């Protein structure tokens, strides 16, 4: 391992500083131009960015979030017009878009106790695929169970918009008659087929 700091006749030899630390020498090369240019650009970037993010409208994280949520509510037909009732649920059961929305919401919350395919979980939620129900006798009952929960059980009320309640209720009602992988034994009473009230 040679400790010779510099080969003879190096074109840069003139550039060499008289520094010598344990044999280590240093060149006095200038800063590369592109290095300086990018460094300045990165510093100056702060000015337009700060203006854009903090002083122009609509670009902050919270502005964008609110816009996204507003777009979602608009896409789902507004928050107000849909009343969460049996008629709305029945209509949604025939609307593939609403069923898909209900399924997605079910997949983030309800699946934990009722299983992803609605077959129920022993010790937790009942099977939603058979004809027996513990707390539901008619379609409209879904609304109260979803919004208020069942005191004393794992079923707690969910904070959902009326649209979301209808979607989830419609999806859960539509599970009836499907065949889950591991169905839990029926609980509660056999009830009449879904109907308008």
């Amino acid at each position, binding site marked *: 391992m040679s400790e010779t700091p510099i080969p003879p006749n190096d074109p840069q030899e003139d550039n060499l500083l008289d520094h010598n630390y344990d044999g280590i020498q240093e*060149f006095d090369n200038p800063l590369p131009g592109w290095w300086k240019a990018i460094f300045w650009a990165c510093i100056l970037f702060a000015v337009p960015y700060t203006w854009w993010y903090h002083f122009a409208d609509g670009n902050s994280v919270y502005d964008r979030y609110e816009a996204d949520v507003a777009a979602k509510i608009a896409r789902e037909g507004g928050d107000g017009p849909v009343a969460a009732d049996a008629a709305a649920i029945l209509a949604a059961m025939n609307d593939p878009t609403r069923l*898909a929305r209900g399924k997605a919401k079910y997949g983030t919350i309800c699946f934990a106790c009722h299983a992803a395919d609605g077959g129920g979980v022993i010790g937790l939620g009942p099977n939603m695929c058979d004809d027996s129900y513990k707390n539901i006798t008619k379609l409209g009952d879904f609304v109260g169970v979803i919004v208020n929960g069942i005191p004393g059980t*794992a079923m707690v009320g969910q904070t959902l918009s009326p649209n979301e309640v209808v979607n989830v209720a419609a999806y859960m009602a539509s599970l009836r008659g499907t065949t889950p992988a591991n169905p839990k034994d029926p609980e509660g009473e056999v009830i009449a087929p879904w109907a308008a009230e």
Partner: protein
Amino acid sequence: MERFSYNDAIVRKFVFASIGWGIVGLLVGVIIALQLADSRFNLGLEWTSFGRLRPLHTNAVIFAFAGNGIFAAVYYSTQRLVKARVFSDALSNIHFWGWQLIILSAALTFPFGFTSGKEYAELEWPIDIAIAVIWVIFAINFFGTLARRRERHLYVAIWFYIATIIAIAVLHIFNSLAIPAGPLKSYSLYAGVEDAFMQWWYGHNAVAFFLTTPFLGLMYYFMPKAAGRPVFSYKLSILHFWSLVFIYIWAGPHHLHYTALPEWASTLGMLFSVMLWMPSWGGMLNGLLTLRGAWDRVATDPILKFFVVGITFYGMSTFEGPLLSVKAVNSLSHYSDWTIAHVHAGTLGWVGFMIYGMVYWLMPRLFQTKVAKPAWVNLHFWMSTVGIVFYIVAIYIAGLSQGLMWRSFTAEGTLQYPDFLQTVTNLNSMYWLRVIGGVLYLSGAILGGINLLLTWKTRPATYEVPVFEAPALAKNFTPAPSNGGFMAMNWHRNWEGKPFKFTVWVVIAVVSASLFEIIPTFVIESNVPTIASVKPYSPLELAGRDIYIAEGCYNCHSQMVRPLHFETERFGEYSKAGEFVYDHPFQWGSRRIGPDLHRIGVRNPSAVWHLRHFNNPQDTSVGTMMPSYQHLLAKDLDFEVIPRNMTALKSIGVPYTEEEILGAVVAAKSQASVVAQELANGGQNGYESKKVVALIAYLQRLGTDITNDTAEAK
């Protein structure tokens, strides 16, 4: 002329420690990688679960592998760069053995659940104090050596060592401030947003001043020595050193984008990270361009290969860092494996390769013999390089795919992958590829360790201690004339002759940049709008939170729902700063291997569900990698420590009343009976006195305060 020799015995000790602990840290890394690929590798034991071992891995590789490597580099190069023997051989040995005891204490506390719950700063308070003491001893030894120097000017490597010693002392002390509640239990002095800020000010700058600046110092000594070439540019050294030291400190908040951290802090973190790109690349340029005229040797010299690839990884990581700090990019990368790939490119590539390059260069010099197995050095290089490629490619793919799955919406405007678990099980094949990469890298490290031992065995009976001669420094220092303007850098040349002045400027750079962010974070009240309905945890919930911390749940679960539509669809209302005011320490987490838990009390407060999940996670979540926590169902909760812990929290501002503390045990038992009743209703009996009840109570409480009452922002 004065005659002196160098203390290389201390360097030999630190080299052995670095290589030895490196193998241990990497081995634990492979084990936890296996646990993510298949949860059976948690072994069903409470002491070997991922949540407890992951801090052992990170602390071992950072503080033991990298730490001992740094000390070896500092002790070897500083003595030679300043032509003076280390200040005190005794202090050197105290430093060495003290540091090894600290590492040992980490290995003896983490598996047993003793942790402060702050990432990369998990060690409990007595060990934190020991770290501070040993660090000060290191500082005395280092600055004492500078004081006895026979070389007027300080070389750039020394500047980086100075920055390391100063900054790590400041970061460690101020982030670790905590109120002890018991012999191995403490609560962070800070809460919520402020704690998160301090933690990532520390966490980010631990990367800066433990994994970057000392390794740049190492590079500036060992790279020109190995290459036999002068350093490319002295001016670049000066500019990139000062810009790096000053700018790095600001960048911490980029770890907290989209969280409840105030937006101004987030923006500052991003902008300074972008500015940091070129200062970092200054180091890479000075490293790589030093090889001009020696590139032909890179192909044949494995030491230069280690250095070149290491520096290249440094360049890659320091480009990626600013990229990830851009808010829009961060919204995709944060909480995903992208971050994990990023840090492993930096640590395995940069930190690891610089240490191995240095150790192989030192081996014949320290042991005064030939390297026992020269061919193995090359083999080690290739095994490690291929190992890193396997690791990072797999984990980049895992990170990107999981990040994209989280945010993916269907045409109907619903989440494409509403079941979080699906986004995790999808990564399994990548996790196995990571294991392969990790095993390769570990095998290389073991090969290096054996080579070190074999070389050591052929050492001479007694080491030759060369004696050097140099004149003492003249009493009067005549500074060079400060002509030629700023860019001639003569002013800096004068600073280099004055270590005290130089160090003061480093302190000013580090502390002033810190205070610019810390002071506003703590004094501007609007940063954390008060939410009237947020109340301190009940005694039982507090006990449950302590279990959550001890088990290291934060290693896989975040508690921070970001204000992003795809997050609120999945996890519920986004998290507000005011919700965390009693969280000592904060538990926002940094990675989602499991789902976010901040709103778990709203989404799934079912005691029965949680009990079944802790007992056997597969019962409720088929395919999950979460290990079983049966010990929580089997072991009794220690109710008696609750008042003690509440008293500690009261002393740092949590408004518990004396009556609440006096009645804590009774209140906790009464809440436990409520949870137990809920469990009994679901057919699960006999858990009233068990740990699991406290943890369930905590989970049921999480994220519910703002919905319990109308949130009022003051």
